[in-house]
């Protein structure tokens, strides 16, 4: 049963990714931008311009460019998207896939730690405020939750840098993922904290944690408001349901009733993880710029500002792919947790 569901969802995700690829391909080519002029400069001769256009392949008809991008009826001699190749960056001449493989783990590391911490903080707060509406926990979280994650995250990041680096001097300067005096560990998983431990470099591990401190703090601060709000709503709904009324009427102890409500409130929270994962992936863009982390967000900013079409297509596709895979994974977990769901 679950196998068929997963297969079906994978098929849908594949079609969606093809859709994303087509939309992004046509979108960047329909907008009035001239990537060749951007690369060769405004004062380049006509010859240089045309040579560059030929080298990039943008002198070819649109359908041929699309064919080369997808890898069907290609005339470039390169593999295309369907063979798992995202093309070569126009700026660095490196395969886009290689570049993204280096930068994606950076972002995933920040986002994963932020989400874990945010849930650890927001779950008990949300539960507490739902159990006593109008109580202290509820009042504390009311305004924070009202923002629902709509906070100028990059500004908070800068503010934290000012307070914790400049004033208190407990955080490192917002430059990079590790102390520049330490040798960067060899990338195995790409997660700096895991790689350093795998190689037994405890000093580098501490430095990596230290450099993660402020970016993670910023994202946790911004996103937990939204999580608290949703957990509170879900728990309130569960507490008002008939089966909780029945449990109370049967004289069950309050702690046991709370456990039932918790389980009912946690299942929708699983879906929230997916939503917040993609929210954080988006928020990470500006945060990475603030802290110069060199993740996929910063890579996106650089590629877009340089009109690097293959890199732009690659970033959008990979980020969409990660979101879709996380949604799928969570739907499977959801199906296991919630006995009412049958696929």
């Amino acid at each position, binding site marked *: 049963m679950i196998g068929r569901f997963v297969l079906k969802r994978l098929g849908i995700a594949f079609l969606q990714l093809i859709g994303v690829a087509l939309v992004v391909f046509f979108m960047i080519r329909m907008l*009035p931008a001239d990537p060749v002029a951007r690369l060769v400069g405004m004062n380049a001769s006509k010859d240089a311009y045309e040579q560059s256009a030929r080298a990039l392949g943008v002198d070819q008809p649109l359908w041929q460019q699309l064919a080369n991008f997808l890898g069907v009826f290609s005339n470039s001699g390169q593999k295309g998207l369907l063979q798992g190749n995202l093309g070569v960056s126009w700026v660095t001449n490196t395969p886009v896939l290689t570049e993204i493989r280096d930068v994606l783990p950076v972002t995933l590391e920040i986002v994963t730690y932020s989400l874990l911490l945010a849930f650890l903080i927001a779950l008990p707060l949300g539960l507490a405020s739902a159990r006593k509406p109008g109580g202290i926990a509820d009042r504390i979280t009311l305004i924070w939750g009202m923002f629902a994650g*709509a906070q100028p995250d990059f500004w908070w990041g*800068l503010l934290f840098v000012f307070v914790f680096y400049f004033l208190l001097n407990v955080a490192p300067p917002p430059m990079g993922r590790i102390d520049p005096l330490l040798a960067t560990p060899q990338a195995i998983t790409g997660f700096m904290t895991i790689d350093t431990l795998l190689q037994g470099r405890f000093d580098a591990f501490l430095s990596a944690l230290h450099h993660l401190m402020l970016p993670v703090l910023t994202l946790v601060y911004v996103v937990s408001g939204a999580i608290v709000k949703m957990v509170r709503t879900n728990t309130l709904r569960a507490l008002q349901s008939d089966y909780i009324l029945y449990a109370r009427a049967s004289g069950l102890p309050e702690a046991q009733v709370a456990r039932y409500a918790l389980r009912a409130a946690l299942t929708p929270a699983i879906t929230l993880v997916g939503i917040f994962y993609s929210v954080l992936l988006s928020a990470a*863009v500006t945060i990475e710029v603030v802290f110069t982390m060199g993740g996929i967000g910063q890579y996106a900013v650089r590629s877009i500002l340089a009109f690097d079409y293959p890199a*732009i297509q690659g*970033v959008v596709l990979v980020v*969409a792919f990660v979101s879709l895979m996380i949604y799928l994974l969570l739907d499977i977990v959801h199906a296991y947790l919630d006995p009412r769901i049958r696929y």
Partner: protein
Amino acid sequence: MADRIVTVPEEIDQHIDVALLHTDTRFRFRERLRKDPLFLIGSIIVALSLFLAAFGPHIAPYDPTAATAEIAEPPPALSEWPGLLVGVIRGTNEAPPHWLGTDQSGLDVFSRVIAAPRTDITIALAGALLSLALGTIIGLVAGFYRNWATEIVMRVSDVLQAFPVFITAMLLVTLSGRSVINIVIALALVYTPIFVRLTRAEVMSQSARGYVEAARAAGNRPFMIALKHILPNSMVPALVQTSVTIGFAIILTAGLSFVGAGVRPPAPEWGLMISHGASQLILGEWWTSVFPGIAMTITVFGYAAIARAFEEWFR
């Protein structure tokens, strides 16, 4: 609740009253202002943001884009404020005080902070309202007529929702030129799918209600039923979302200029100001970046407070 007695008349258009009975009462603005302090604060902030969007650049004490001779001057100490204020009222100050200091280029921070809503609020409002309009129309049609054509619209909307919001907005603005109108269009495009989904879901649940059947039985044309009866009853989730979206749009607009893909300097804009001051922040020159961020946070808070009130009313 009880102050409105609903009588169901025998006339042909009784479905209207049935509809009112279903969706309960109006949004009582005044009563809410009195009873809900958060809503009161939110309304004041929103009104102020609209006022500044209209008149901010005109009431600013300094030209927000013209440099003064004082460069990177810190704001006056709080203890000096009363004296300066008296000076302003009496007209005895030799020049208007730099309430929030000046930045690296000698621009008055206070003038820029209150002139910025002209850019930020206008873009955010236009973007959010445009996506509300587009989203409700598409959502209404897609929810009311369920056939292969609207199915395609929904699949396209699904694909668009898989796009990362910030990266897509940045892409659209950078490649089409960093102008105000292009930012508005980009915001509208990235936020429309949410409104389509919300409106469609509500339209579908409303379509099953009795009043729709009554309207049909009374011989109304299907399109008119959708427009005159279902649409007004399906707007609430989208309206709540609009208020939330305005907040997100303000942050997105500022975020775009922060990474260098939004409006161009020296336009007074919160994100530009924060980005301009960012490099000085770690040297201790905090006022250039901190004040626009505070203004932005307060503004977003105002729209969120209103959204919350709408949400509670809806539930």
